[in-house]
């Protein structure tokens, strides 16, 4: 009897903890899974096709990297109740504030275009014309926010996050050799030596792991959701689970393309999907659905990151808990960004490849600043109090930030001056 009552007590504790987590869950999961956006999917697909399973170990390492950076935004948002843009303005003054805000809006808008490129390419595999795709996307994004409830938006976003898992069944369908995956993928190695091409791929994978919009998005989402100091442990758990999901999805994409398309030069996820259609039509279809979903999830989060940032700084009502008439400027910016980015993709002969390359370069102007501000804010006792970074957290996060800045800068240089890395 005593055993039964103890078991029941433990059971109730677990259920209550789970219920509490489900209430808090959202920003961490969404930002991490949205990190696997159209550009990310392309990078992973190309990595698998080029190097097979050999770089899986590297993807595993990127999970903790993403977690350490994003976890800081949870604490900063929960303690200050300010988004990252507003926090930069307040802490570092208007020069750095304007620089961050304007750079963020430019980078996000260009990234939005790349999401639309991915989505239109994905649906064109099903013979859906780009104009219809753009209309579908705008319709979905309008539907998500028109309710005027953060909760509704978040749950719909989490549904799209679940759809991102289509790569897992896709990987099982191509019957990869588990032995080969373990043998080639788990032990750190540099296939073919540390060549310029391999370094380029490693840098591209790091570049997709941490993007400037992720920092701004998660901090604003934490504030909009109303998370406080007591919710920080749950926010961290949410971010850990998100980091695990994002790495798992990335690994399964590498497994799919590493199994079927090994040795092929892949320049886009849509190309990988089309190539797959010949031998595994269902897998090709799943890849295309996954690519569309990844682009949509990225677009949802990126456009919101910009709207939140502008709302915070300009003092507009800027919450998903407000209806369109209550927060007109917040939603106006949101729709302006989506519609204009969608229209760019529809322009005949638009320099889309150039835009895709340009995003990677411009992102490097903002990422170091956003990361450095994050560390400085997290070390300020007056702002963070007992939630400031510990010595261990500082050592880890500063090492990660220096690594990310160095590699993303190198990546931008390799895009600007490919001849230097030939």
């Amino acid at each position, binding site marked *: 009897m005593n055993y039964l009552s103890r078991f029941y007590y433990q059971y109730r504790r677990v259920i209550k903890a789970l219920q509490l987590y489900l209430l808090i869950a959202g920003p961490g999961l969404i930002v991490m899974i949205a990190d696997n956006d159209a550009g990310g999917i392309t990078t992973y697909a190309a990595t698998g096709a080029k190097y097979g399973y050999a770089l899986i170990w590297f993807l595993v390492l990127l999970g903790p990297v993403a977690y350490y950076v994003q976890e800081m935004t949870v604490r900063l948002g929960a303690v200050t109740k300010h988004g990252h843009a507003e926090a930069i*303005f*307040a*802490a570092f003054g208007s020069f750095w504030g304007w*620089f961050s805000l304007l750079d963020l809006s430019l980078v996000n808008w260009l990234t939005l275009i790349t999401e639309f490129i991915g989505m239109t390419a994905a649906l064109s595999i099903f013979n859906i014309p780009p104009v219809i795709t753009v209309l579908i996307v705008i319709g979905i994004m309008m539907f998500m926010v028109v309710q005027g409830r953060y909760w509704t938006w978040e749950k719909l976003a989490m549904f799209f996050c679940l759809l991102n898992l289509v790569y897992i069944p896709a990987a099982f369908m191509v019957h990869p050799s588990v032995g080969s995956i373990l043998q080639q993928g788990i032990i750190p190695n540099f296939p073919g030596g540390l060549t310029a091409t391999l370094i380029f791929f490693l840098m591209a994978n790091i570049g997709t792991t941490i993007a400037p919009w992720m920092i701004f998005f998660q901090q604003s989402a934490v504030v909009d959701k109303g998370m406080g100091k007591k919710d920080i442990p749950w926010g961290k758990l949410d971010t850990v689970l998100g980091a695990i999901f994002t790495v798992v999805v990335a690994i399964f994409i590498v497994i799919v393309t590493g199994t079927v398309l090994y040795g092929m030069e892949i320049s886009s996820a849509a190309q990988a999907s089309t190539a797959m259609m010949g031998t595994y039509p269902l897998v090709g279809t799943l890849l295309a659905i996954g690519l569309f979903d990844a682009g949509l999830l990225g677009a949802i989060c990126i456009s919101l990151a910009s709207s939140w940032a502008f709302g915070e700084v*300009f*003092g507009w009502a800027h919450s998903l808990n407000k209806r369109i008439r209550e927060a007109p400027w917040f939603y106006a910016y949101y729709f302006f960004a989506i519609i204009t980015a969608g229209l760019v993709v529809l322009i005949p002969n638009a320099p889309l490849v150039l835009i895709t390359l340009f995003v990677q370069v411009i992102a490097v102007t903002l990422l170091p600043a956003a990361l450095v501000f994050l560390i400085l*804010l997290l070390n300020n006792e007056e*702002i963070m109090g007992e939630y400031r970074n510990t010595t261990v957290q500082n050592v880890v996060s500063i090492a990660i930030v220096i690594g990310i800045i160095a590699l993303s800068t190198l990546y931008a240089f390799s895009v600007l001056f490919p001849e230097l890395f030939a």
Partner: protein
Amino acid sequence: MEKTDLTGKSESPEARSDSFLSKQFSKFTEINKKYAKPQITMTPMVRVALLGLRIYLIVLVLVLVYKFFTLIRT
């Protein structure tokens, strides 16, 4: 919810802003005034980090300008 600064202190009502098109241009001045003085304590670590960022960005911009002109020339 009451609007507070980063340290949790209440913001003055003057610091709050409205959201109408006619006021958007004066908003820039208002925002500059509101955030004129950085709240963060300028410790040596902060100064070095901000100086490093400025140098990094200047170099990056120079590289971008160089690339732009070499592209135009070709």
